[in-house]
C-alpha cells in the first residue's frame, strides 16, 4: 500500500476517533488497512487480530503486526486494559458470541469502537415489506449464504450496551459516506459507536 493511499470512508471515520500514539487492537483486521494508516499517520502501536492466515500474511506485507486468532473464543491472549482503543469493524453482526466479544473488548481496552450495518435502514425495511430479506451494498448476501446472523438496529445495540453497563460516548450514522443526523435509524445504513465502561 502506498503511503498516500486514502482510507475507505468508514475506516477513516474510525481512524479519526483514534488518539495519536495510542495503543490499538483491531479485531477482524482483514488486510490491515486501518492499522497501517494509523501507524503511518498517528504513530499508534498495536495489533490486528484475524481468523484467516491469509489476512495475517497481508498484514505482514502492509507492515502491520497481526495475531491469528478466533474472536469467538474471546481475547485470552490479551491482558486487562492493555489498549486505548479496541476496534470491531462490521464484524459484530457475523459473530455467534456477540455479547461476549463486546464485554471482552472493554476488558482489554479503555474504549471500544464498534461499527455495523444498520438493519433499520429504510431500504432494508422496504425490501422486507416487499416480502424479501434485504440485500444491499452494506448487506451484500442472500439469506441462505449470509455470514450475518445477529442483525440489529441502533436501539438494539444501545440496549445491549446498557444491559452490560456500557455507555455510548459517541454515535455516528452514515449513508454512502455522508453523515445522517435526521432520522438516523431510518436513513443511515452504517452505524459507528464509541463506547466505554460506565464509571464506577
Amino acid at each position, binding site marked *: 500500500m502506498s503511503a498516500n493511499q486514502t482510507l475507505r470512508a468508514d475506516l477513516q471515520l474510525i481512524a479519526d476517533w483514534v488518539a495519536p500514539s495510542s495503543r490499538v487492537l483491531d479485531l477482524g483486521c482483514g488486510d490491515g488497512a486501518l492499522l497501517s494508516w494509523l501507524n503511518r499517520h498517528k504513530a499508534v502501536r498495536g495489533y490486528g487480530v484475524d481468523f484467516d*492466515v491469509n489476512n495475517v*500474511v497481508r498484514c*505482514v506485507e502492509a507492515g502491520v*503486526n*497481526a495475531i*491469528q486468532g478466533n474472536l469467538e473464543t474471546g481475547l485470552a491472549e*490479551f*491482558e486487562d486494559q*492493555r489498549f486505548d482503543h479496541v476496534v470491531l469493524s462490521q464484524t459484530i453482526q457475523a459473530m455467534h458470541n456477540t455479547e461476549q466479544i463486546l464485554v471482552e473488548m472493554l476488558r482489554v481496552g479503555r474504549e471500544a469502537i464498534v461499527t455495523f450495518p444498520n438493519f433499520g435502514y429504510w431500504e432494508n425495511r422496504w425490501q422486507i415489506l416487499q416480502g424479501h430479506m434485504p440485500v444491499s451494498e452494506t448487506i451484500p448476501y442472500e439469506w441462505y449464504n449470509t455470514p450475518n446472523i445477529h442483525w440489529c438496529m441502533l436501539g438494539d445495540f444501545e440496549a445491549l450496551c446498557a444491559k452490560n453497563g456500557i455507555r455510548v460516548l459517541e454515535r455516528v450514522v452514515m449513508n454512502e459516506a455522508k453523515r445522517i443526523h435526521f432520522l438516523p435509524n431510518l436513513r443511515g445504513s452504517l452505524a459507528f459507536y464509541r463506547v466505554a465502561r460506565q464509571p464506577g
Partner: protein
Amino acid sequence: MSDLTRSVGIVKAQIAEFDTPLHLASAAVLPAYQLCFETYGTLNAARSNAILICHALSGHHHVAGRYAADDKAAGWWDNMVGPGKPIDTDRFFVVGLNNLGGCHGSTGPSSINPATGQPWGSSFPVVTVPDWVRSQARLADRLGIDRWAAVIGGSLGGMQALQWSIDYPERVAHALVIASAPKLSAQNIAFNDVARQAILTDPDFHGGDFYAQHAIPRRGLRLARMLGHITYLSDDGMGEKFGRMLKSGDYQFGFEVEFEIESYLRYQGDKFSDYFDANTYLLMTKALDYFDPAKDLNDDLVAALRKASARFMVASFTSDWRFSPERSREIVKALVAADKEVVYGEIESVHGHDAFLMLDEPYVKLMRAYLNRVAEEVNA
C-alpha cells in the same frame, strides 16, 4: 522452474576454534571447543543482513545445499533456505551451526577430550540453551556480526531464538520462533525420558563410554528415534500416509514387520542409529527439558521477555501435538503483555510437529512476507 527448486549449490563446512573457557550453566567449564558451521549468501558491507539458523534435536550446521553434486540429500532446511526462497540467500547472509554437544563436527561427547586423549563420552558436560546461545554469540563475534537481522529456529531451535532475544537484546533485530514452547510440559519431558531410558538401558551404552568398547547402543537410539517420530507426526498425517496398509497384503500371525508404519519407523530408527551419537541425543533432550527462561524470574515469562528488544514472529501448526499451538500462544500472550511487536500465524497442517520442515502454503507465504519485511529493514 519455481523459486523453491533453486539451491545454494555446493557448500563446504567450516570450523571455528575457541580457546577461551566457556562457563556452563551446570558450573562445568569447557576449556576449549570447536564449532562446525556453514554460511550461504554474502555478508553486506554494513554487516546488517546476517541470519542465524538454530537447529532442533537432530539437526546440524548443514542447513542448505550439497557437499557434492551427487549427494542424495540436501541440507535439512534446503526447502526454506536458498536463492529466491523465503530465507533468501540472494539477500541474506545465512549461518547454520552444529551446537555444542552435537555429533556433526562441533565439540561433543564423541570428540576427543584433549586432557585425556580419549572421547569425552560420559564426562562431557550437560549443556543448556543459554550455554548454546553464549557459544553462538562467540561465533557471531568471530564472523564480525554485531547484530543478527534475524535468529530463526523451529522446535528446540525456536527456544534458542527466544533465548537469544532475552540474553542479547541488542544483537537480535527479529526472532522467528516456530513450532516451539516457552518450556516443556510434563508430558513432553516424559517422552524425552522414555527416549533416554531406551539409550541408558541399552547394554551397548556402557554408561556413555561405549566408544572405547567399539560398541554403539543401536537398539536404544533406534527406539528413541521411533518414539520421537511418532510424536512428530499427527494421527491424521500418519493415517493418510500409512493407514493400516500391510506389506504382504495379509496377516502373517507373527511379530515380524507387517504394517507399513512398522516398516517406516524401523527404517527411520535404523538410519538414525547409523549416524547419530547416543550421548548427543541424551544432551539434546536434556537441553529441551531444562529450557525455561522464566524459571529464575518467579516463572514470570513476561518479565523474561521484557528484556528483549527484537520483534517476533511466532508460528505453530494445528496438528502439532508435541509443540501445540496453545504453547505458542503462551509465548504470544507474554510478548503482548511485555509490549513487544509480534506476528502470530497458526498454520493449518496435517504434518504434526514435522510441519515446520514442510512447505504448507500459508507457512511459506508467512515466512516469505515476514522475511521480506526484515530484508527491507536491513536494506538486504
